[in-house]
C-alpha cells in the first residue's frame, strides 16, 4: 500500500471523530438518561392502553383528526367503555396539561417528530 501510514492514520482519526459523541455521552453519564414523562392525572386509564399509546399515539391522533374534521364524528369509545370527545387540547391535554414535562420529555430527547400540531392547536398554559 502506498502512503500506508497516512491512510491508516486517517482512518483511525475518522473513526475516533465519528464515534466521539458516543464516547462522550457514555463517559459523562448522559447515555444513562432515560426520558421520564410525568403523569399528573389521577385517571386510571388513558383512551387506549398505555403500551398502545406509547407506540401509536400519533396514529390515534391522525385517526381522530380525520374522524372529527372530515367525518364530523367526535365521540370515541375507549377500550374500557368510556366515551370521550376526540380532541387533542380538550381531551388529551385535560389529563396531560404538562406538555413540557410529558410530551417534550420524550420528543426533545429523541428529536423525533417535532410536531407542528402546536402551530395551530393551542398548548394549555402550564403553571410552574
Amino acid at each position, binding site marked *: 500500500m502506498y502512503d500506508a501510514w497516512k491512510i491508516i492514520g486517517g482512518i483511525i482519526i475518522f473513526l475516533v471523530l465519528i464515534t466521539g459523541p458516543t464516547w462522550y455521552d457514555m463517559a459523562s453519564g448522559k447515555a444513562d438518561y432515560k426520558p421520564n414523562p410525568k403523569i399528573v392525572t389521577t385517571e386510571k386509564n388513558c383512551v387506549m392502553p398505555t403500551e398502545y399509546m406509547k407506540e401509536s399515539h400519533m396514529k390515534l391522533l391522525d385517526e381522530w383528526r380525520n*374522524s372529527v374534521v372530515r367525518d364530523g364524528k367526535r*365521540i370515541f369509545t375507549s377500550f374500557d367503555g368510556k366515551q370521550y370527545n376526540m380532541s387533542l*387540547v380538550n381531551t388529551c391535554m385535560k389529563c396531560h396539561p404538562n406538555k413540557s414535562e410529558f410530551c417534550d420529555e420524550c420528543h426533545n430527547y429523541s428529536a423525533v417528530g417535532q410536531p407542528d400540531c402546536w402551530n395551530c392547536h393551542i398548548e394549555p398554559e402550564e403553571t410552574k
Partner: protein
Amino acid sequence: MGIDRRKFLTIAGLTAAAAIGKKTLGDSLTADTRELLPKDESLVGKRWAMIFDIKKCLHKDGCTVCMDACHQIHNVPDFGNKKDEVKWIWKEPFEHALPDNESPYLEEEFKDKPVIVMCNHCDNPPCVRVCPTQATWKREDGIVMMDMHRCIGCRYCVAGCPYGSRSFNWRDPRPFIKNENPEYPTRERGVVEKCDFCAERLAFGLQPRCVEVCPEKALKFGDLEDPESEVRQILHDNFAIRRKPGLGTNPQVYYLV
C-alpha cells in the same frame, strides 16, 4: 466490462423510487379503523341554512356583536390592515352584498346600509369543485367544511368563490389574536379559512355563535329539509333573496328584505 455509469444510475434511481413508493403505499394500506359513534345531543340536519333579517339588524346602528363573537371564539386574527385581512363574517353595504338587487331608486332604508355577509355554504359550491386536495368539501348536512391540515394554500378556492367569503393567512396569525379561546385551535400561515356554520358547536347541540348572540335576533339557523323547522316557516311566510343566485351556486344564506 461490467455495468456502465448510466446503467448504474438508472438502476439505482429506479430502486430508490420503488423503495420509497412501497413505503408510502404500505403505510396507507395498514390504517386501522375503529367504531365511531355519533353523540345524541349533536344537532343533526340535512341542509343547514341561515336566514338574515336585514331590517331587524338595522335597528342597531354600528352593532358588531355577531362579528366580534364569531371572531373571538374562533381565534380569528386582526392584522389591522386590509391587505392581510382575515374575516369570517362582516358587513357590506347593500349594493355590494346584493348587487343584483340594487337600483338608483333603492328603498331608502337599505341605501348604503350594511348587510351581514359570510360564507353561503352553497349547495353547489364552486370552491369545492376547484380544490385540488379536497381540503374543502361539502358535508352531507350541507356545510362547506375546511380541513386546515390538508390545505396546501394554493388559493384556488379563493379565486373560485363568487362572494369573496374566503380568507388566506398571508402571515402567522398567532400574534394578532386578541382574546385567545384556548378551546379552539388557531390556524397557521399558508392556509385558507372561512365560516363553517360553527360545526364544532352544532356537534354539541349549540347554535352558531352569531345566531346566539345577536341582540335583535336577526339571524336564524336551521335545517331546510326539516318541514317543521323555524327557517322553513320563515321562508314560507316571507320573501327572501340570495346573493348572486344566477350563478347557480345555490347559496344557503337567505336575506329577508
